[in-house]
């Protein structure tokens, strides 16, 4: 079955430290992969996407993600976390319709 998985329910980092939110996929063919962020009581906001081309994708708010075909991963990264990055992050893929991961809560402490 095609899916995306986010193995961590929660990630905690200190402000200023690098952060990684993990996502792995199980999709046949060439996946369209996405990261979305959801702030409390808000809708999902698009961060970045991978369609084709360069494996390193840069997105909004200083986030980036690396598409790794051999490891079937699409981890979200940021070199220096901010307290304001604290939110719920969703990995997703688009194959006729959107499939979302279970979400990872990012907690950045001052």
């Amino acid at each position, binding site marked *: 079955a095609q899916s995306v998985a986010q193995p961590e329910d929660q990630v905690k980092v200190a402000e200023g430290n690098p952060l990684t939110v993990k996502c792995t996929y199980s999709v046949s063919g060439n996946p369209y992969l996405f990261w979305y962020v959801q702030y409390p009581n*808000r809708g*999902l906001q*698009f961060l970045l*996407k991978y369609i084709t081309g360069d494996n390193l994708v840069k997105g909004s708010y200083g986030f980036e993600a690396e598409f790794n075909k051999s490891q079937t991963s699409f981890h979200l990264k940021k070199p220096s976390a901010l307290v304001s990055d604290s939110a719920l992050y969703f990995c997703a893929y688009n194959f006729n*319709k959107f499939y979302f991961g*279970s*979400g990872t809560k990012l907690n950045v402490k001052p």
Partner: protein
Amino acid sequence: DTAVSQTPKYLVTQMGNDKSIKCEQNLGHDTMYWYKQDSKKFLKIMFSYNNKELIINETVPNRFSPKSPDKAHLNLHINSLELGDSAVYFCASSQGVEQYFGPGTRLTVT
């Protein structure tokens, strides 16, 4: 300008009632969606319309009936509300591979 808007933002109602949630997008997109986010933040697609025509209908109880009067609007009507319908409902639209989400409607059934 709000790209994807939903009304109401909050909806509290009793079991057995019928209620509607409205969604409008001013992005000129052809495709619109309804998602349900449960208490564990799991996000699942319910319906998708393309140019007013239903293209995705997940296994959703037939108490849920989407209606698209034009391609800028996708409303969700729910009959005979049940406790398990309590969730946040998100509308989204797309014109390509990425989706744009509304702010959500928090439905509480008592």
